[in-house]
Each structure stands twice: as C-alpha cells, then as structure tokens.
C-alpha cells in the first residue's frame, strides 16, 4: 500500500537569515529515511506519465521502486542509464513543468518529489560509483563543441556507443552555464566537476582553453579527422537594453557578474579576480538568471537588492521556487517597472536608475500581455549598481567561421525537423545554440537526440 500522504516530504533548507550570509547550498537534501518515505508515495502508474515529461526519459517509477526498498545504488544505476548528470538535474530542472507536472499524485495534492529523489540518489552514490564499462571502440572520432549540458550529454551517449569523443571548451573549466552561471548555493561546483570526471572515466577527452571559431574552426576539425561534429555552444552573448548610461561603472551584464562570482570565485578573498561590493543593487529582468544575480548581490553584502521587471508577478519567467527563495532572502520586487536611464556621478559611477511604471495591455505575439508605459510615472531608484539580465543570444563566432552552416535572424543554428540536424553535412547542434536561451534539461534532451542521429549517420557512412 503506497504512502498516501498528500504533500511532498519536506526537504530541510538553510534559514533565510543565515543563508543570506553564506554561499552554501540552500536546500540540504533528503536523509535516507525521508527519501524512502517520499519514494513510497509513487503509485507506479502503468502508463508512466512522468517519464513523458522528462526530456531524457529517465525510468522514473523504476528508480523510485529501488529507493522505496532502500536500494539506493540500484536506483542510481537506473537513472544513469539515461541521464548523464543526475546530481545536476535533481537540483536545477524545473520539475514542476516537466516530470512532476505529469505526476498523478499531483491531481489531489502534491506530486511525488522526483527531482529531490534523483538528487538524493546521486548524492548518496557520489563516493560509491561503479567503474563505468567502456564500450567496444568503433574507431571513429567525434568532436563536441562546448561542455555545457547539451555537449556533456551528447559526449556521454556517444562514448557509451564506442565513439572516440573529444569535447572542446573555450573557458578553463568544463560545465558551461553550470559553472559560470548557476551559483554555488543552487549547484555546488564540486558536483559539476564530479559529473565531468564520470564522463572522463567513460573515455571522453575534454580540452579546455580551445575556442572553436578562433583556435580551431569547425571545418578544420573535419580536416583533422573528426567525422562528425556536435555544436552545443549555447547562447552566451548578453543583451543590453540600449538605454543611456549603460557604459557607467557599476553596470554589468548578468553574465559578467555571475562569471566573476561563480567561475572566478571573486567573492573569495584568496582568488585574484576582483568584484565590487555594492550597497544598493537593481537587477533588471525576471528570469532565473535575474534571481541568481540578485541573490548573489545580497550575499556580497548589499543592503538593498531590487528585482526590476516590466511585467507583473504572474508573468515572472523564473521558477516559483527561485522567486520564493529570493523573497525570503529579502530581495524587493519592483514589478511593472522598466528602466529608461542609468544615472552616473561625476566619476562615472552609477548613482541611480530612472524607471517608468507600466501596465499590462493586450496579449502580444508571444501570448503574454504586453507592458505599456504609464505617461508621467518616471521615478528614480537610488542604486550604485545595475545588473542587466534581460536575456542572451548565441555567440556569432561559430556562424561567422563555419562554411555552409545556416542560422536564422536571431543567430540560432537552423536545424531540420528533428531539431538537431544542421544544414552542413556531419554537423549536428542542440541546446541554446539552436533554441536560444532555454533550460538545462531541454539542452540535455537535444544532446541525447543528436548522439542518436550522429550514431545513425556514422553507422551508415
């Protein structure tokens, strides 16, 4: 008889007033007993709707059955069959709109906490992972461009099929947005490096400090003996707003701010990269990146941190959980508000931001109600830093240096209906490089799909 408790088993978290002063993980994870209790809530539906909600199709009821019996290593083995990065996904996937949105238990109560269970299994097995079995080598080389979620997934799947895979990464650490974007308090960096080490055990080679498009072009990769190329270079080029004052000192793209903190560890005094400790910070935007930047600014010691967003509470694109965490940590939301000008003092430092109030009008092409300025509602917010988190687009380096690779007017790589086959023979792409900024798990799904297609292409060759 399943556990019919209507709500999810609670997961402990650091108290807001404490976590605002440290960089440790906010969510503490389940204990073994809590995990078993939660696993027993699964009804083991025959048609497994949850699996359909997972872009990499983790065998969810199957692994949860192992957890319910206390066989955590067995559960982990089931997850690893389809997911190369379970410790990451369990933490950062928007489960409420993926697997957990389809859970039958969610109809009359809360869905099963699939993400928390996945995370538990990965953490439990962190120091007792079996040596992966290397596949019979096929003697064919594949290059993967970018070591973010799509590239790592694609590389893992190809290695499991026996391909000789090399991942090329422009930065000095592998992981893409997992290392430079998502902060330590949501995703500890040691977890990312452990997941990457697992890939290396599968035989995947990772070359950091190689910028494809500069150090080596895609065409040169083929000349050097790679028979297929997967492009998972993401959408890392920040957008600015085009308003006056964006050149001021104290104005950052969220990418710069987060890269200094997460990749370069500027918040630690034993690391050389500097960061300013601002007093009052405005973060412009309403997505997960904006929440991350705001919560980092708070941890750097800002007295006041604002989220400035042009639409309303219901339109915030960030996960509910992130918005909730941000509010608990004292982040103030200035909704239906849009910056029009950043003001600087005589030394060029930011001293305030001029905003205008908005109201929601008719729905636009995206289906969301369009924000409209309210005339005469300009007002200043006293800040010494403005972090711009209004989105990113794909970097032009690869499209500028690769012959025969079509991109659309947004700079995204054009693919066939399968979502991963590009206009250039032997070249496949996936993740944000194709879709524009989206989620970790969608990028992983595309990486998996591309590995499948590359295997088909090279087997037929």
């Amino acid at each position, binding site marked *: 008889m399943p556990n019919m408790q209507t709500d999810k088993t609670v997961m402990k978290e650091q108290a807001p007033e404490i976590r605002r002063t440290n960089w440790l993980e906010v969510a503490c994870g389940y204990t073994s007993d809590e995990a078993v209790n939660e696993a027993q809530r699964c009804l083991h539906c025959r048609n497994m709707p949850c699996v359909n909600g997972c872009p990499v199709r983790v065998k969810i009821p199957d692994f949860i059955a192992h957890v319910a019996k206390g066989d955590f290593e067995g559960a982990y083995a089931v997850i690893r069959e389809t997911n190369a990065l379970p410790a990451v996904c369990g933490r950062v996937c928007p489960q409420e709109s993926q697997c957990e949105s389809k859970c039958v238990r969610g109809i009359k109560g809360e869905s099963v906490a699939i993400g928390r269970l996945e995370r538990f299994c990965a953490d439990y097995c962190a120091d007792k992972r079996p040596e992966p079995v290397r596949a019979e080598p096929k003697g064919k080389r594949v290059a993967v461009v970018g070591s973010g979620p799509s590239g790592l997934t694609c590389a893992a799947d190809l290695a499991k099929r026996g391909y000789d895979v090399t991942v090329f990464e422009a930065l*000095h650490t592998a992981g893409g947005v997992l290392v*430079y974007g998502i902060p330590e308090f949501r995703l500890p960096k040691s977890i990312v490096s452990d997941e990457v080490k697992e890939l290396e055990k599968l035989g995947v080679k990772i070359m950091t400090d190689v910028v494809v498009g500069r150090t080596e072009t895609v065409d040169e990769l083929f000349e050097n003996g790679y028979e297929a190329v997967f492009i998972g270079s993401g959408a890392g080029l920040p957008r*600015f707003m085009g308003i006056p004052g964006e050149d001021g000192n104290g104005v950052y793209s969220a990418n710069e701010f987060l*890269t200094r903190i997460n990749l370069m560890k500027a918040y630690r005094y034993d*690391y*050389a990269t*500097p*960061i300013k400790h601002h007093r009052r910070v405005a973060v412009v935007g309403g997505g997960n990146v904006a929440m991350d930047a705001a919560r980092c600014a708070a941890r750097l010691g800002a007295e006041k941190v604002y989220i400035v967003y042009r639409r309303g509470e219901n339109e915030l694109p960030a996960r509910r959980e992130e918005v909730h965490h941000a509010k608990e940590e004292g982040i103030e939301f200035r909704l239906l508000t849009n910056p029009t000008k950043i003001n600087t003092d005589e030394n060029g430092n930011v001293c305030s931001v001029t905003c205008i109030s908005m109201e929601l009008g008719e729905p636009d092409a995206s289906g969301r109600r369009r924000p409209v300025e309210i005339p005469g509602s300009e007002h200043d917010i006293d800040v010494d830093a403005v972090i711009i988190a209004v989105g990113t687009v794909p970097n032009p*380096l690869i499209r500028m240096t690769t012959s025969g690779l079509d991109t659309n007017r947004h700079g995204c790589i054009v693919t066939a209906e399968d979502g991963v086959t590009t206009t250039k023979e032997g070249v496949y792409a996936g993740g944000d490089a194709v879709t524009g900024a989206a989620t970790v798990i969608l990028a992983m799904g595309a990486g998996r799909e591309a590995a499948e297609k590359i295997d088909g292409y090279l087997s037929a060759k």
Partner: protein
Amino acid sequence: MFLVKENTVLNPNTVRMTVEAPMIARKAKPGQFVIIRGDEKGERIPLTISGYDAAGGTVTVIYQTVGASTLKLAEIPAGGYLCDIVGPLGRASELDGIKKAAVVGGGLGCAIAYPQAKYLHEHGASVDIIAGFRNKDIIILEDEMRAACENLVLLTDDGSNGHKGLVTDGLKALIDAGAKYDVVIVIGPPIMMKFVCRLTKEYGIKTVVSMNPIMIDGTGMCGGCRVSVGGEMKFACVDGPDFDGHLVDFDELMKRNRMYRDEEQHDCNLFREAKEREHNA
C-alpha cells in the same frame, strides 16, 4: 598546463614570456591577443600576442608588471607552467593593401605595434615607426623595430635618449615633412591614442587603434570589455580590439578602466607585503 619556455625581464617593469602553445601559434595573426591565467586562483588577463612561431609552436607576449597578477606571472621561471593560455582571440588587424603606414607605439604599446609593423614591412609596405617612452631606461625592442621599418623615430618624454618629445610631435613632423600615409596605426595608453587620433583627424588620415579595456572571458560572453564606437556598443574582444580611432570614445574607456583601481591597489599591496615578509624571514 602550458610550458613557459622563457620569461625574461627586459627592463625593470617589462617582461617577455614565450609559452609553448602550438594550436595558438599556428593560427595567430597580428592584432590578436591571448588570455592567460597564471595559477588556479589567478584571474584571466588579456595580453596581446607580440610574436608567434608556428613551426616552433610558441607564442610570445610582452607585459608590464603593474599589479599582483602580472608580478606573480613574472615569477614563473623558464621551465615552469601556466595554468591556462587561450587564443588567438579578437579579429586580426586588416593590413592587406596598405602601401604606406605610420605605426605609433607608446611604452608597452610598442610590443603590440611591433608585429603589425613587421607584417607590413615584410609584405612590401613602406613603414615609419614612431615609438615613445617615458625615459631611455625603459626603451624596448629598439633593434627589432628598426629592422621592421624604413624610418624609426624614437622619443622620450624627458629627452634622456637625446630626442625629447611626445609621439604626436614625431608624427606631426613627419606628416608636415610630406609623408602621405594610407593609415596610422596607434597602440599605447588610451590618453596617447586619444591625442594621436585628434591630430590625424585634423589631417584626415585614417587611424586604427587597439583598445585595451578590462576583460574576463575574451570570447564575447560577458560584455565587460564593451566600448562605444561611433555611438554603438561594441565588445572589444570579438568586434575588436582594432577600431577606427576617430569613432572611439576614449574618455569612456579611461573611466571604465579605472573601475577596479581600489581593489587592484589592495591586491598589489598585499602581494608586495607578502614578498617583503618572505624577504625578511
């Protein structure tokens, strides 16, 4: 890890480093740069490539010891290792088709201007180099520059080498004496580039500058290096570092480059104090 083949002090605060980096050496062109991270806790610093040897697989940079990171870099012995070097980054300079050029370098900028002059000279252009230094003790690359041009004008601010003056004086004299330049390439401190551009604008001579803003990744993902060119926002790491000098907002560049001055000073003092303690122990 990348092997440091040479790390030689050229003058009290200028060092030449040659690093084994075959992939970069094969692709490097004049005007491009690398990003170096000395050690695991180090920052990423952009340094312009001042020489490359594709056959030997090495890249050379010349840098000034101006802060904690460069002071630390200077301590790596030949045979030691750098954590990271990545490149070549930025667009290569557009040098083809130039028949007569003035290459203007200021201080360390001469190390950056030298490969451009060398390339032009080797490709049949007529090149004048105007090189400026604060005093004669910090003159670098004199022989190399002399070999890469027809006419080297070497100036010092204090006249300690016998030729007192600023690079703008040297350039103006050549133009007034009738030199007809297709282009002036100027590399050095922002204030120097600004004044050279002001001069060449009066004469209507096309002028290319190499921008040196603060950078982190160097691949276009953060916008820390953004500069205003003709009123438009450009990222120096991918759109540059070369830009039309008559369109660049130098005052903004100088203002943004001062952003971390307090933090830099702090780290540099910590480094010097640690060195002194080590020395006294």
